[in-house]
């Protein structure tokens, strides 16, 4: 136990000091941390899943607080919670199924009579599952009679767990933890291989002699471009350097080393060059449910320029990086059963993320020293100790918000998607109950 806590603390400090950069690295580290946390967590005999969920939530809360802007942390926490729920559910259904196979297999007609004591657990499980499963005609049909049952799956789910666990303890006590860890391992695997899945699609989008523009640097973009290159496509890349971090330099060097014709341009020259560009391909920091993108600073400008010249603006994003749930508020989707009122009822702090101007609220201001030498302007900068209002402010935001109407296409590890479709992916990745991780802190 102590070593887990120290691990968590170490990670928290790293997050707070912004030592971990890049959504992918953060995601991976978070997942690994949670895995070791879960594996060392001692679980009670009853209501294992509930205990686990609470424990993970508590840690997740701390992690999110450490760096609220690094949305990948929260997303991974939600993913893990979702995994726990799913595993628990499958165990429950398996157990229930074992007890009453016939009821499970043909209970489509019976579920609306959920009061039946023998079937209640299965019925609730099925209902809960239906919210998680990607919609099919069957689930849609199932959904209709359940409209009342769906909104509170967490409470009923908890009850069901309690009931089912009391029924058969031994088979599941070890199994749940094992399964969850397996699934988290899979998630980690996914995170490290998602590039490849995205890069595989490169050939479909890049063809001979194209001119592609990108800004800053992103592992995914690098892999994507190189994958196209490996398939014998020859094309040229303009790399905007991405002030104030100039990651574009490193990207350009790598691309050139891999044999791509690369030209580095200044960020200011993006508008000048975009008229000769066939496609803009960029990475994202996070994708919102409405299809908006939180991206490295400067991308909104690029997206506007691309729109002006009718150049496709393509965002590469991988599943878990994407989709911070709170912006679900935008879509206000019924199947996610969460509404603004509910969020407000929780007094959720995430509500300020309501995106009337997300770039301000979801942003992070970096050190002015990236822009100006302190020495040079030390007499006019405000160091927090001077009296009176300083004459000089330096603004150095880290992220831009690109509204969905400027994005032409998302390429994710599950294929290409329209911005308007992004909210749909939420159902695949997250459980509606976990959207608000911080419930406890506010209540």
């Amino acid at each position, binding site marked *: 136990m102590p070593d887990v806590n120290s691990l968590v603390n170490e990670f928290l400090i790293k997050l707070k000091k912004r030592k971990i950069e890049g959504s992918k690295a953060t995601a991976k580290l978070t997942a690994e941390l949670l895995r070791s946390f879960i594996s060392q967590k001692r679980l009670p005999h009853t209501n294992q899943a509930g205990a686990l969920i609470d424990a993970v939530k508590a840690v997740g809360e701390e992690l999110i607080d450490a760096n609220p802007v690094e949305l990948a942390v929260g997303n991974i926490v939600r993913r893990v919670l979702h995994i726990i729920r799913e595993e628990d559910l499958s165990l429950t259904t398996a157990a229930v199924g074992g007890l009453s196979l016939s009821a499970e297999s043909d209970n489509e007609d019976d579920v609306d009579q959920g009061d039946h004591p023998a079937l209640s657990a299965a019925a609730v499980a099925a209902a809960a599952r239906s919210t998680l499963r990607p919609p099919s005609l069957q689930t849609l049909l199932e959904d209709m009679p359940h409209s009342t049952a769906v909104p509170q799956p967490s409470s009923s789910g908890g009850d069901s767990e309690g009931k089912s666990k009391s029924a058969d303890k031994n088979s599941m006590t070890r199994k749940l933890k094992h399964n969850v860890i397996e699934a988290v391992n899979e998630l980690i695997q996914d995170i490290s291989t998602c590039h490849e899945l995205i890069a595989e699609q490169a050939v479909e989008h890049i063809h001979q002699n194209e001119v592609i523009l990108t800004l800053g640097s992103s592992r995914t973009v690098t892999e994507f471009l190189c994958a196209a290159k490996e398939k014998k496509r020859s094309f*040229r890349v*303009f790399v905007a*350097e*991405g*002030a*104030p971090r*100039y990651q574009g*330099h*490193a990207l*350009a*060097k790598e*691309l*050139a*080393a891999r*044999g*791509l*014709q*690369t*030209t*580095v*341009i*200044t*960020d*200011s*020259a*993006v*508008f*000048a*060059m975009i*008229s*000769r560009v066939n496609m803009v391909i960029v990475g994202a920091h996070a994708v919102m449910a409405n299809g908006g993108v939180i991206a490295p*600073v*400067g991308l*909104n*400008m690029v997206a*506007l*320029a691309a729109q*002006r010249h009718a150049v496709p603006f393509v965002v590469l994003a991988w599943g878990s990086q994407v989709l911070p749930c709170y912006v679900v508020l935008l879509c206000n989707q019924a199947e996610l059963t969460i509404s603004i009122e509910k969020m407000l009822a929780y007094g959720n702090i995430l509500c300020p993320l309501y995106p009337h*101007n997300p*770039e*301000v609220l979801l*942003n992070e201001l970096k050190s002015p020293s990236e*822009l*100006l*030498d302190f020495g*040079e*302007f030390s007499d*006019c900068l405000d160091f927090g100790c001077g009296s009176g*209002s300083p*004459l*000089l*402010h*330096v*603004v*150095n*935001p880290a992220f*831009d*918000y690109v509204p969905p109407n400027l994005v032409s296409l998302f390429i994710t590890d599950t294929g290409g998607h329209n911005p308007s479709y992004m909210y749909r992916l939420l159902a695949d990745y997250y459980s509606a109950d976990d959207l608000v991780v911080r419930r406890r802190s506010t209540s």
Partner: protein
Amino acid sequence: MDARRVPRNVTDPKVRQVGFFAPVAPLDGSPSGPLRPTTPSPPVSGNSLSPVMIPLPRHLSSDNAPLSPLTGRRRRLLPPRGADKAAVKQNTHSASGLTPGVTDGGPPSEVQKEQAPVSSLPLKEKTTKAERRALQEAQRAAKASATADGSKKSVGASAVVTSANANPKKVAKAPPPQKKDSSSVAASEKRGGDRQTDKDRKKDVPHPRMQFDDEDRVEKAKKRSVVKQTEARYRVELFRHLPQYEHGTRLADLESKFFQLDPVHPAVYKVGLRFLTGDISGGNARCIAMLQAFQESIKDYSTRRDKTLIEKWDLPAKINGYVSFLIECRPLSISMGNAIRFLKTQIAELPLTMSESEAKASLLSDIDRFINEKIILADKVIVGHAVTKIRDGDVLLTYGSSSVVEMIFLCAHELGKQFRVVIVDSRPKFEGRMLLRRLVGKGVSCTYTHINAISYIMHEVTRVFLGASSVLSNGTVYSRVGTASVAMVAHQFHVPVLVCCEAYKFHKRVQLDSICFNELGDPDAIARVSGKEDINYLDDWTSSENLQLLNLTYDATPSDYTSMIITEYGMIPPTSVPVIVQEYGGEHLWI
């Protein structure tokens, strides 16, 4: 002496448009009138001219008649003025202007008096005149075959015009009084003009620029060039039409040649070097520096003794040499091109009879006047206009560093307006830092950020003030690279974009994108990030043949992003730029 007449007999046919385009004269008078304390309002008589004046038959032979007496008279006039030469430039200028009796809007009556006796003067110097005639013919033939140098000179009618005009200097405003005093002269001139207009219009079309992917021409240019330039090894494919040179080598090369470069005047040389190092940058600063260098060189100029008559007056050739030297140091800005065109016109229009010293004095004062009226006073007027657009509580955004915009901010600050300035800067020049330093020093509250954060900061901005290197006649604003992005984001956020630009920077050219014409800066400036030694991925960029660095200097902002252009002629929408170019742009308004 006579040789000098040769260039000037190529007279501006545009002049004659004055009669047809009545608004020109008053337009010129009204806005710039208050600007010039030295000059009384220009003759408004141009307005009353009707284009329907009956053209008299033009006889070339009889044309000669007025010419020679006039020159005779002028020669007689010259000595006293030559004696005066020590007087103040302004004085000399107005005197020289007066002789033709037109430029400075001297009372028409005076002109009449002056010219009336002229025509009645007996013919003198028949022999010289004949000689001159022959010379002119030869020259004309030569000129006609060669392409004009970009200014709207028409050669065909030049002889007629010159002879009829009899006061080639300041032809610009010559017609009105002339038409008044002698209809025959006016009429003949008019006819010349009539004939010329169409041709002339065609000539107005700007020349295609030198394209550096045209190998023949590049070879030719290389032979002429003073500076040895090594071409960049890895050129950006898209910009092969622009000169791409190795930057490091030129300065050393030039410095070593300091004492060998005979054809280049030291003052010009100095300015050239400072252009090269980036010591002087900014449209106005460069233009003024160049003109002042030309002034120096004109002061030191003397006609050559060892040449024949025609070749004696080689000032235009010299200036051309200087200009090409400057181009080799750094491509000219459009505003500098305009200034050079102005200077060339002035040289071409010098009266043949003027003594060398007078001609020089006149040129010097012309240049002075250009700097004062077109740049310094124009800036003041622009500041006056723009300050009215700043209200208390405004947040003003500017990009890079523009001298006019800086003046506007300082002026508004002095007026006690409460506002905040957002300075957006970009790599690699970081010109905004200088501006920031100066504004903060003056006590203006500033916010500093880089261009990527433009969408972040634009929320709080209420006005965007931008400078421009040039405004093209389709309304495109050609300015420091990044301006277009700033204007675009401002447009997206519905923030008004005000472009401040002196009218001498307007140009007839049109451009749709930033690629067809641009200037390429030193690519090494991109590889190095000042103050960040840890970013050194591109240090050895030349070793990879797949990697190029592109350092664009300008970009073209589409006209729909511009809400308003503030010039000394007032605040205009971008759609009015061609009007300004047409009505105010020709040389006839330079004076």
